[in-house]
């Protein structure tokens, strides 16, 4: 029997649910936002499809950039570049490697320094249409794609960041027990009952280190091959074509993420995202792409920052933002969250320098913050 309180709840919810909703506007806004998500090539978590990478690359290759492949004159739908992730280049995919760090390999330091990655994935991260390296507190990740399937390999020292990584893929494993399969070494496979084709593997590659492979549809045999290629004897340094000359008080590098293409695109750069701040909430995210990727601030205030023309606006996630449309060939978007309001975001933007050649990975700085 329904109680008075339950009836009151239904009444209050009914009155508070609000007025009619314009679904045309909603669909248009969500689609535009989704397209921007794609265009920013945030591929690290593997949720963006390979087609999204193709969209970014298409923009890159269709616009002139000294000495690079000529822009096709046909429309995007008929362009031979439009589905470049589907067509392996004649020499095969070849994602350039991040520079090796001049520090001894030490898996016990996984997740402790956002400027470093303490593992590699032989062959698969190179023979890929794109590769993303990300290092942040508690977890390091290398994501790549093959045959239109994305794979994300994550290493951590505790299980929580790995669970969180799955949750960010909307793979909430709470309430579901992984189904163990007999591969020895504590290897587990998990396939949701509702979403066939998505799974993760988790194992312990070294004492105190947990590894996880998440795939959005690849064969289990591929994951097994990837697992055998995870190496802990090499330390890589996260790099980007920009550096910061100063940080806000109390701030440090929180996260470094770089995505490079496996095809001979200008500069290979798909995106870099540096996060600097005091914690996971109060921080600024600096997103770097080639200048040709779309920028879409609607209400902007133009000014000069760090000697470059910039715009100040609130982005589609309500974040105070500064954007350089062309900072020595790069588009750079700085956005603040938490206590990082416009003045702090501006100070971060002021400290950005582009000394390197965005098209030449070997010139990119390896020390990104002071």
């Amino acid at each position, binding site marked *: 029997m329904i109680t008075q*309180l*339950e009836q*009151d*709840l*239904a*009444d*209050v*919810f*009914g*009155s*508070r*649910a*609000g007025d*009619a*909703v314009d*679904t*045309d506007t*909603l*669909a248009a*806004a*969500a*689609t535009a*936002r*989704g*397209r*921007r*998500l*794609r265009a920013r090539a945030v591929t690290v978590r593997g*949720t*963006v*499809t390979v087609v*999204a990478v193709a969209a970014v690359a298409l923009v890159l290759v269709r616009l002139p950039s000294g000495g690079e492949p000529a822009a096709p004159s046909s429309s995007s739908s008929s362009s031979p570049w439009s589905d470049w992730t589907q067509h392996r280049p004649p020499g095969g995919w070849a994602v350039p490697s991040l520079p090796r760090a001049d520090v001894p390999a030490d898996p016990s330091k996984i997740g402790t320094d956002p400027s470093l990655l303490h593992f590699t994935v032989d062959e698969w991260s190179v023979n890929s249409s794109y590769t993303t390296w990300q290092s942040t507190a508690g977890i390091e990740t290398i994501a790549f794609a093959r045959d239109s399937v994305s794979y994300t390999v994550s290493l951590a020292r505790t299980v929580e960041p790995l669970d969180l990584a799955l*949750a960010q893929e*909307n793979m*909430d494993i*709470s*309430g579901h027990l992984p189904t163990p399969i007999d591969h020895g070494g504590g290897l587990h496979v998990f396939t949701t009952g*509702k*979403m066939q*084709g*998505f799974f993760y593997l988790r194992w312990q590659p070294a004492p105190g280190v947990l590894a996880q492979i998440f795939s*959005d549809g690849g064969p289990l045999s591929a994951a097994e091959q990837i697992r055998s290629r995870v190496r802990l004897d090499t330390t890589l340094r996260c790099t980007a074509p920009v550096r910061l000359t100063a940080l806000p008080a109390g701030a440090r590098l929180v996260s470094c993420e770089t995505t490079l293409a496996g095809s001979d695109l200008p500069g290979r750069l798909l995106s870099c995202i540096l996060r600097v701040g005091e914690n*996971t*909430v109060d921080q600024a995210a600096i997103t770097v792409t080639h200048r040709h990727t779309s920028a879409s601030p609607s209400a902007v205030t133009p000014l000069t920052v760090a000697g470059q023309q910039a715009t100040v606006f609130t982005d*589609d*996630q*309500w974040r105070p933002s500064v954007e350089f449309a062309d900072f020595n060939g790069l588009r750079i978007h700085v956005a603040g969250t938490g206590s990082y309001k416009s003045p702090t975001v501006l100070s971060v933007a002021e400290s950005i320098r582009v000394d390197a050649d965005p098209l030449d990975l070997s010139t990119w700085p390896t020390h990104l913050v002071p």
Partner: protein
Amino acid sequence: MTFEEFVHSRGAALVRFARLLTGDEHRADDLVQEVLAKAFVQWKRVSAAERPDIYVRRMLVNANTSFWRRRSSSEVSVAAPPPSSSPDIGAAVADRDELWRLILTLPVRARAVLVLRYYEDLDDVVIAEILGCSTTTVRTTALRGLNLLRARPSFSTLRSSR
């Protein structure tokens, strides 16, 4: 079903659901846009789900939970209730406003369960599917939410004013 068809058929319900989850109309609009944008990017996966609607609502609940987790506080964002227009209905409106304020003080998970149960009128099996938990958890969370409401001092005042 295409993404556009999905938004046209389920978008309004999602926005209303989000308004009740967040207690803030602007935040709700933003949350639904954020979730639908993510769904757009991975539409192949979403549309492959047995029930995309449940999948997206689960994304919505998770996004809202993540938002509050990021805020790491019990801050409650509540639009000010409109002033009562008539003395006769003023008391009833005030009671409803007060209950709404109490609802917004509940933990986000408890609020989600109550909204799904008493607004969406879903059974515990479906709620459990959306929240990714067991039906027992749904029942205990609902019970705890109702008890929390009853235990609030202003709830007693609310009841005695009737």
